[in-house]
């Protein structure tokens, strides 16, 4: 109890130093929170695409319906294919109109003529997609084939690049946090050098002297982590409507509340370790 009183007293006596330590911790945990959202969101998106073994083949504009029917029948007879769905130009227009119903300008510009008819083909196994893709690509009726594998690999390479950048950012910010807390706590230890000496002379152990400083570091960590988490969570919840329409069909939202609670708990643990370690480093110099 007395130790906590000392910690609070130390913090109140130098509010600007405390604010600097809390702000840098907040920045670190803001980055940690966003990185976590990115990692979990991208993992969900990738697994969504991976769970849909699908190839979409767009026909050339001048393709006859009889040729399309022939190809469709041929594909249906193939064992490895689970389903084949024909999407006519009119169907494509309907889909387009549904997707852009809130934007009349986009609706006016597009007619069924300029949209290609297509076949959406699913395979039983994801490994069969490659064969179907090659077969369709070589067909003279087909203008373009979209293969989910491309989407997944593009998404994977983008998210792994973002993860790397994010991770580097988190590491750099963590180091900055450590240096700031070492400096802030170091200054306080230095200011209390005489008091520390007196305490040692009347029988204080090193741990008795260390505890208030270590708890101070943990306090900065906790407050910073909470603020970083709160800002990131509010920002994410605020962006849900925009992100939902951007990531059409990908079932990322709503994010379960338990996820936010678990993230906060993990950040508290990390912040505690970071704060305690930094303070320990600062005190170590004076208590050899």
């Amino acid at each position, binding site marked *: 109890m007395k130790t906590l009183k000392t910690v609070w007293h130390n913090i109140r006596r130098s509010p600007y130093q405390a604010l600097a330590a809390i702000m840098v911790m907040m920045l670190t945990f803001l980055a940690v929170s966003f990185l976590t959202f990115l990692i979990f969101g991208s993992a969900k998106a990738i697994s969504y695409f991976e769970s849909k073994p699908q190839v979409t083949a767009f026909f050339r504009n001048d393709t006859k319906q009889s040729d399309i029917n022939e190809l469709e029948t041929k594909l249906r007879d193939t064992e490895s294919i689970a389903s084949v769905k024909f999407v006519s130009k009119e169907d494509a227009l309907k889909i387009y109109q549904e997707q852009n119903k809130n934007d009349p300008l986009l609706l006016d510009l597009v007619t069924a003529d300029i949209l290609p008819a297509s076949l959406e083909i699913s395979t039983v196994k994801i490994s069969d997609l490659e064969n179907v893709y090659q077969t369709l690509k070589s067909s003279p009726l087909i203008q373009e084939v979209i293969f989910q594998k491309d989407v997944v690999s593009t998404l994977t390479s983008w998210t792994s690049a973002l993860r790397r950048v994010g991770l580097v950012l988190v590491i750099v910010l963590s180091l900055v946090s450590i240096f700031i807390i070492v400096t802030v706590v170091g200054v306080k230890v230095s200011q209390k050098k005489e008091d520390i000496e*007196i305490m040692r002379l009347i029988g204080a152990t090193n741990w008795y002297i260390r505890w208030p400083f270590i708890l101070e570091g943990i306090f900065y960590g906790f407050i910073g982590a909470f603020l970083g988490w709160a800002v990131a969570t509010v920002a994410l919840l605020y962006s849900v409507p925009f992100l939902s329409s951007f990531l059409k069909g990908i079932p990322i939202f709503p994010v379960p509340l338990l996820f936010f609670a678990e993230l906060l708990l993990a950040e508290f643990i990390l912040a505690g370790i970071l704060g305690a370690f930094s303070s320990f480093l600062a005190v170590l110099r004076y208590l050899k």
Partner: protein
Amino acid sequence: MIKLDKVSKKFGTGTLALSSIDLTIENGEFVFLVGPSGSGKTTIFRLITRELLPTEGTIIVNDWDVAKLPKHKIPHLRKRIGVVFQDLKLLLDRTIFENIALPMEIAGVNILEAKNRIEEVLEQVGIAEHKEKFPIQLSGGELQRVAIARALALSPDIILADEPTGNLDTNTSWEIVKLLSLINQKGTTVIMATHNAEFINGLAKRVVSLDKGRLISDEKKKKKTKEKNL
């Protein structure tokens, strides 16, 4: 019991602070450690509390060989020795009560038990009415009493008082010496460093004289003047 056996202390600068000191102080004794500035009085105290290590010799305090004491045992030694520092070493941002509570807080004494003991020592040294004040609000004599109260808080076996009357007027100085003498009468070993001849001559106590780091005399004084109602 405190026993210094052929203790020497040479500082890194080359200064020889103590030279082959042999000194034994039994439990419950009152000893004046006298000598001019730089004679080695404070160095002896610092060696006893393991603030310094001797260059040569052995120091025994109770059953501890102080120089060989492992680092983690030093706090235990220091809790058994109450020190009244020459510069008092009070925490200026804590009240008198909190200053006296500090050794008990460090020793992990139960709050209620500590409170009772603090009230007791505050009464004993006569500063109970100042307990909520800060050191800056007290006079030199009162501060000296606070330092003594803090040294007494854990009921130590030994009290080391380093020039406790250094900056005080004669009357206040006598009050402090009386207080230390009373503490000694209750069984605590008291070693008081001073260069005030009046106390030495006024009290029939053992006097150990030092000069330039050497022990030059060790004698039990006889009363020369009438002892001041002790």
